[in-house]
């Protein structure tokens, strides 16, 4: 759920850098360069990530144009990642089946390389039957405030998104946590000095520590 539908859960980022004057054309081409490319059934890679239009995240042939992503001074697009994941018990059983066939056929015990080849063959077979796990996360970039909203909070996906964003747009992202709000707040010199030396305050000491201290 994100920009267009449903309840919204998101992280806030400050975008550090300058948006070029011809950003519409420039971003159209840079996003197209790093657009999402679906996993091929015959290929060996197990994950893929890139940009897609937020309105049609699964229309793989649809080009990303400014008609999709431009909303006044805001840009709306989506980060999609597909991961091919094989159910482990299924993989184990099918590999064992293959190795049994090898034993029956040759009468010999399969060694390391044969086992590896059997696993690769099973993975290739499964790949044609199993759909990859897809995740689509909406992104809203407000140029007027140099802010970005990423509609997911998962640590891994945030890291991968940040990396791709920085590669695509040559700009840095800084997460807007409360600590960051405090650092960027308008404060007097005295208050800034106080902030630098700030330590957590305990309302009540942690129970275990109190007990540990009491019992030496």
């Amino acid at each position, binding site marked *: 759920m994100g920009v267009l539908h449903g309840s919204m*859960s998101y992280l806030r980022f400050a975008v550090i850098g300058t948006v070029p004057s011809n950003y519409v054309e420039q971003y159209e081409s840079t996003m197209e360069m790093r657009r999402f490319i679906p996993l091929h059934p015959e290929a060996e890679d197990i994950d893929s990530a890139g940009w897609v239009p937020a309105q049609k995240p699964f229309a793989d042939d649809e080009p990303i144009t400014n008609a999709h992503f431009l909303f006044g001074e805001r840009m709306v697009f989506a980060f999609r990642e597909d991961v091919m994941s094989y159910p482990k018990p299924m993989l184990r059983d099918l590999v064992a089946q293959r190795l049994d066939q090898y034993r029956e056929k040759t009468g010999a015990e399969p060694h390391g390389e044969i086992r590896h080849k059997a696993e690769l063959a099973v993975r290739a077979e499964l790949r044609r039957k199993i759909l990859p796990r897809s995740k689509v996360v909406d992104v809203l970039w407000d140029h007027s405030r140099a802010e970005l909203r990423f509609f997911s909070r998962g640590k891994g996906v945030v890291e991968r998104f940040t990396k791709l964003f920085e590669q695509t747009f040559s700009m840095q992202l800084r997460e807007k946590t409360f600590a960051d709000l405090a650092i960027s707040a308008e404060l007097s010199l005295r208050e800034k000095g106080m902030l630098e030396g700030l330590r957590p305050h305990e309302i009540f000491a942690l129970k275990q520590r109190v007990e540990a201290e009491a019992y030496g």
Partner: protein
Amino acid sequence: MGDLTFLGPEFLTWLYFYIDQEGGEIKAGKPEARITVGKSILLKPLANPDMRVAILSPMLDDSGEVLQAIRAGAHVESMALDVVVGEHIHCLTVNGTDGSLSQVKTRYLFAEQESKMDLAGFDEPSQGPKKKKLTDEESVLIRMSALDEIEAIVDSLFQKFLLRRLGQSFVQQDLTAIRLSVAEGLKARLPPIDHAKRQPSHLEEQPVAYPA
């Protein structure tokens, strides 16, 4: 600058008691918003994130669990808030550690606005005649202006907390008030002692029967 991640949980803990001390509702921001605590809260000690207390209830502190967790050394990690600004009712959860907002939903106060709510895609469409669907551009505009409104309120409350935290008022007034509030709240939740049913302790003096 040192690690200031503790400011988020400290802010939410302060906010919980600030709302409580103002009678369950505070006013903040421009245009003025009325803010109350929502239906869920998550508490964790700053020093031990593996321990946690999660409470999900329309009457959050009836049982006193929040106060007990605070008394045991926990801070508020995330907290649901209901924010009313003009005709909008925003329900959201503020997360202290990463500053994110989650489960943000917006409704309208008045019945005639409900149709707009459906159009805005904030909620599932209600039963009844089919309404015109908004364009993507209209949806983005309405939904993002709701987020702008909410963020401005949360940021203004954080700014208020930060100025108190950097001054003397946090230690001299707020912490004392929180400790008092916890002590009084827990005391008020102690079960009443029924003196009539009370069994005498073996330490108490027993009446001695003297021979006639």
